[in-house]
């Protein structure tokens, strides 16, 4: 690049250095160019931060905001400006008999006599059958806060009886209630439980395997396990050596394979080929007859393979950072290799390994594509009962809700994103605290 500049730019290669005032001109011009570029480079860096802020703004804008609800009969008219909870059982039944047609009343009576129902139940019936609140419009937070007069004017024109009020789509009922077909009643309880189950099992599969592989690659690859005095032993030693190199290269390549390919692998192996095992039939405890292998354990196995390269690479780095003097001291005291690894190397590499664990969990928590491919359920109302149950996870719910055209589903998708990000941050925080605790405990 330097050479190209010297030959191509005629101005700079005159062979004479600028003199006098020209020096000043030359230098200040170049410094000006430098300052402009510094500004541009700084802008490039700042754009990332702006994007992050826009992302958060966009989520908050959708997750909170206003809703316009139109009631068929206003609440005030029915309850005569009293609190529904203050009314007696007779009053409530009176409202129902007065407002509902006899056929509907008859059906309700046949289901369970009105006199036997609790007041809360009766209020729910009044709400569903008489008041019939209908969501006619939803507004993102920005419009709700700053365009209030405009949206109110528009609303009174279209739906004169509708009322605007503030709605936080992220609420305790959103977190604790299961999936439902309407956006207002839907929640993420099953999805959170599914995510936690899957993460737990993923850690269970991926960590021992990943740390084991890292230990082999770092502690044993220089080893010659077979007898060097016989040709067969030497050949076997070369073979294992080559294999170790191959494993190391292969792990690097695996970390670049798109996650959806792991999904395809999981679909063919864990869901289809190993169906008797992943659906629990082999152990005689199939939780759900219709799962067909599309279970939590199949998802966790797939996810474990996906995060394995991350776990191995970070564990390798952590193990490599353990000073060699510690190992030699241990050998000098007569410890065997495994004793050294178990009592010396692993404890001092633990904080680093945990950092890798954070990375792996963060990756697993947000992965969606492989789970779509292996067939996570999108609509499921019962809590997962065990590793062989059908499941859904938070990212799948977010994907499913975002893909729907209705505004209220976008709103609950935004609320679910907030839940996902909080889950992600709290797991990261836990791991960092744990890491710092282990680091402070270690005598160094």
């Amino acid at each position, binding site marked *: *690049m330097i050479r190209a500049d010297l030959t191509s730019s005629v101005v700079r290669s005159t062979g004479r250095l600028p003199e006098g005032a020209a020096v000043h001109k030359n230098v200040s011009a170049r410094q000006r160019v430098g300052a402009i570029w510094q500004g541009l480079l700084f802008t490039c860096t700042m754009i990332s931060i702006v994007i992050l802020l826009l992302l958060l703004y966009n*989520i908050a804008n959708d997750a909170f905001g206003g809703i316009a609800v139109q009631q068929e009969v206003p609440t005030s008219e029915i309850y005569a400006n009293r609190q529904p909870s203050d009314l007696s059982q007779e009053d409530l039944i009176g409202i129902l008999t007065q407002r509902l047609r006899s056929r509907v009343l008859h059906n309700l009576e046949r289901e369970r006599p009105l006199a036997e129902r609790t007041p809360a139940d009766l209020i729910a019936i009044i709400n569903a059958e008489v008041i019939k609140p209908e969501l006619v419009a939803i507004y993102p937070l920005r419009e709700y806060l700053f365009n209030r007069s405009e949206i109110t004017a528009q609303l009174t024109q279209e739906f004169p009886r509708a009322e605007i009020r503030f709605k936080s789509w992220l609420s305790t009922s959103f977190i604790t209630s299961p999936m439902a077909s309407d956006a207002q009643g839907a929640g993420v309880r099953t999805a959170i439980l599914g995510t936690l189950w899957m993460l737990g099992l993923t850690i269970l599969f991926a960590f021992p395997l990943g740390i*084991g592989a890292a230990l082999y690659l770092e502690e044993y690859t220089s080893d010659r396990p077979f007898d060097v005095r016989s040709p067969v032993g030497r050949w076997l030693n070369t073979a294992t050596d080559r294999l170790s190199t191959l*494993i190391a290269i292969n792990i690097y390549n695996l970390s670049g*394979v798109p*996650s959806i*390919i792991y999904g395809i692998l999981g679909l063919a192996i864990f869901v289809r080929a190993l169906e008797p095992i992943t659906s629990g039939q082999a152990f005689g405890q199939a939780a759900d007859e219709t799962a067909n292998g599309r279970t939590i354990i199949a998802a966790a196995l797939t996810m474990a393979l996906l995060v394995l390269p991350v776990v191995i690479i970070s564990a390798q780095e952590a193990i490599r950072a353990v000073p060699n003097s510690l190992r030699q001291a241990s050998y000098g005291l007569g410890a*065997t290799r495994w004793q050294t690894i178990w009592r010396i190397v692993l404890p001092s590499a633990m904080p680093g390994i945990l950092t890798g664990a954070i990375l792996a969990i963060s990756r697993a928590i947000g992965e*969606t*594509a492989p789970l779509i491919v292996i067939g996570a359920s999108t609509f499921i109302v019962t809590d997962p009962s065990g590793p062989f149950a059908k499941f859904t996870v938070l990212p799948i719910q977010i994907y499913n809700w975002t893909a729907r055209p209705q505004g209220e589903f976008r709103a609950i998708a935004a609320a679910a994103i907030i839940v996902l990000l909080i889950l992600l941050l709290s797991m990261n925080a836990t791991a960092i605290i744990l890491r710092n605790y282990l680091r402070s405990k270690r005598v160094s």
Partner: protein
Amino acid sequence: MADQARVATDPGGTVTTRPPLDLRRRPRIGEAIIQFILFACGLTSIFVTLGIVYVLGKESLLFFRDPTVSLVDFFTTTIWQPSIGKFGILPLVNATLMTSLIAMLVAIPLGLGAAIYLAEYASERARGILKPILELLAGVPTVVYGYFALTFVTPILRSVFGQDTVEIYNDLSAGIVVGILIIPIVATLSEDALSAVPTALRQAAFGLGATKFETAVHVVVPSALSGIVAAGIIAMSRAVGETMVVALAAGASPNFTFNPFKPAETMTGHIARISGGDLSYGTIDYTSIFAIGLILFVITMVLNILSRWVVQRFREVYE
């Protein structure tokens, strides 16, 4: 243990004839078993790769054996409509390349700019604040970016270019957001490469009277070029394999179009959509996702190997 036992059996200190001391390494069965188990852990990664190749290869073979599919048409025709038995992968590949290209146009300038700023200009304190933020951007789940593309970027594009030109699902929005997604990859990997350039080179350039910017562009960047190119290739591989953003924002119709405002389905988006429904084993739809997956796997594998090769072949080694 054996030595102690031998000493103990000596009666009253009288020296009896001992067997010659065996100083060879004694085989330890337990240690050998542990070593074998750890080796097996390492081998799983090989099995994963073999498993991927086997599964993709086997089902793709079934796909290409199907009478409605011909290998030539698969790679040369531009219509992908499984319902009428048309399987030409070009529209999917085209959409993937287009979103990736748009993504690279976004990510390379921004990512490289951020990397140069962080490595050459930023103070230690500024770097300590800015780098974690970049990493935060990398930690956001991709489905969130998909949401961002569909509910934020697309409306902006539609108001800028007009509701009629830009459709609700379009390649441009997906491409831009995939670009945002890979900025941290370009930035952190390039920054590592730039920071690895020895300070002596910079000092030499300053000594010759170069400004900070001239030093960065004419000395530091060329010296770290192999690392920067590798970062770009890895980012490209990520963009090709990215699924959620394109599945949500790029649309669900395999169009062969070069218009970034039109919907077009990528390879990954198609796999996600097809397998999201009820997929019965052995159908042509089922085997087709393996064929697409195989092409995707080959593309990303070639890119990964290329990036490794670039680093090894063109790296400038300094003492």
